């Protein structure tokens, strides 16, 4: 068929000064950070929507970890007696919980993010990575007050912060943020195809608390499992991140930080941390590639 001439004169000033390009966005995560204003709106939206219709609202973000903290402290610190074996077990526990809570929040909220926003995903063209990333940022926002509480608690019991420790804590945070974003991307896409995935995520996050050395001291791992399995245990990025976090906060409050480090932290803590961050970044790239493939089917499967 030949395109007909419609006799329409083209006004050259109306022709936009950009090349023809596909209308779909292809930049993935890069596009997300290019459109920061939209991201900010989505984050603000999630902040107000996450606990909509509940009286305590955002307080729930703090009630849950507080209750969990008290439970762990009473059962494992007092009843099992880690209090006597670990200096300042409360700080040891809380430092880990801040990170773990950040991770599970990112993972669960991120997994649901695309399905929850299906009204928009189905009808508007935009980088869909926005939604899991916004979930991750909202969770990070909720982590700030917890980190403040941790800092204040550390100072109360007598904390000597040190530069290396703070860098370690930041490294731990980055590992968790990167893994959280990667998993949120993967599972948010998978959740579009089968809602089972949000249930799988809930099951997975239940394990997280037990797979990291916060409710028990790291020394238990080589003692019970043997030195050979320590490497396997530390292959868990969250275990490594929690140890880095404890290096940042908990080590500084103990009576003899050097002795604590020698006894309670594994060798090559920082090298392992950097390797973990590298792996996390690779996983993030893979997650982005998978997301881009699955994204094509979002509008028809939602």
């Amino acid at each position: 068929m030949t395109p007909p001439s419609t006799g329409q004169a083209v006004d050259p000033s109306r022709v936009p000064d950009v090349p023809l390009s596909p209308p779909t966005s292809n930049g993935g995560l890069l596009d997300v950070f290019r459109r920061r204003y939209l991201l900010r709106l989505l984050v603000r939206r999630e902040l107000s929507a996450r606990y909509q219709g509940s009286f305590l609202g955002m307080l729930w973000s703090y009630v849950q970890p507080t209750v969990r903290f008290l439970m762990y402290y009473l059962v494992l610190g007092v009843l099992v007696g880690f209090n006597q074996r670990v200096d300042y077990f409360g700080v040891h526990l809380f430092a880990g919980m801040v990170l773990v809570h950040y991770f599970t929040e990112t993972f669960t909220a991120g997994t649901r993010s695309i399905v929850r926003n299906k009204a928009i995903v189905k009808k508007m063209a935009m980088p869909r990575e926005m939604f899991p990333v916004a979930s991750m940022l909202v969770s990070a926002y909720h982590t700030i007050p917890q980190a403040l509480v941790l800092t204040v608690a550390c100072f109360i019991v007598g904390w000597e912060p040190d530069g290396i420790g703070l860098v370690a804590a930041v490294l731990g945070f980055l590992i968790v943020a990167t893994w959280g974003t990667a998993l949120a991307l993967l599972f948010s896409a998978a959740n579009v195809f089968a809602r089972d995935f949000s249930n799988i995520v809930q099951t997975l996050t239940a394990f997280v608390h037990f797979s990291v050395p916060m409710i028990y001291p790291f020394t238990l791992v080589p003692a019970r499992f043997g030195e050979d399995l320590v490497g396997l245990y530390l292959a868990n990025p969250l275990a490594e991140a929690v140890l880095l976090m404890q290096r940042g906060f908990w080590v500084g409050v103990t009576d003899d930080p050097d002795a604590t480090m020698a006894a309670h932290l594994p060798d090559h803590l920082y090298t392992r941390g950097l390797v973990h961050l590298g792996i996390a970044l690779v996983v993030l790239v893979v997650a982005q590639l998978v997301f881009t493939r699955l994204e094509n089917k979002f509008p028809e499967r939602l």
Partner: protein
Amino acid sequence: MSESIVVDQVSKRFTMRFHRTIKQMSIAMLRGQDLSDTFLAVDDVSFSVQQGESIGLMGLNGSGKSTLLKLISGVMRPDSGKVRTRGRIAGLIATGAGFHPQLTGRENVFLNAAILGMSEKETKARFDDIVEFADIGRFLDTPVGHYSSGMFARLGFAVAVHTESDIFLVDEVLAVGDRPFKKKCMARMEEIKKEGRTLFYVSHAPASVRKMCDRVLVLEKGQLAFDGPTNEGIKYLKYDDEDDVNSDENQDDDELGADI
């Protein structure tokens, strides 16, 4: 050249899944039923549109119009072939905007405008115009989930028409509006057309297509069956075979798109 939309051998296939749970799927497999079926919603469609043209996209229900519009707007990606556009795209896809039901009208205006690529400043500058056009009054701060379908469509249309864009897509939005609103929309679309934007208009109403569009594309079962001048396109679809009752009222309904 000054092409605005280039669609090149584009196909989009949908997969229909009949069974969603493992139990249903295993029973179906035992019985030897199909687990899924596919159909081509858009089948090897090619055309190009110059900047400033207004195109009417017509076809029966299920002929692939909305899918084609989603491909052009970038909501969907074609399975094969290429869609390329020049400049910013705004418009309404499949009756009603992509609004978040839990957010208020006000929040949705900002979110929607941001998705369409407007900055906070641009949105603020046009906010009053948008609200006035949508005419939703005190419901502005109510979650849009509580809106009537007319209000929903009005607000969506209001945001879309006030967005800076080079290509404007409209998909049967007028079907839910009342008569005064439809008139307002037609007037606004004519302005948009005069501004030299590319207009892509999906409608079943021959008179409004005749009025707005220079060229008509007709889809039949996903294939491009006709591409040419408006009157011939409408004739092709046999949408003009109603007897020549040209009473004013009939003309009016025809024009505003009382959907067939």
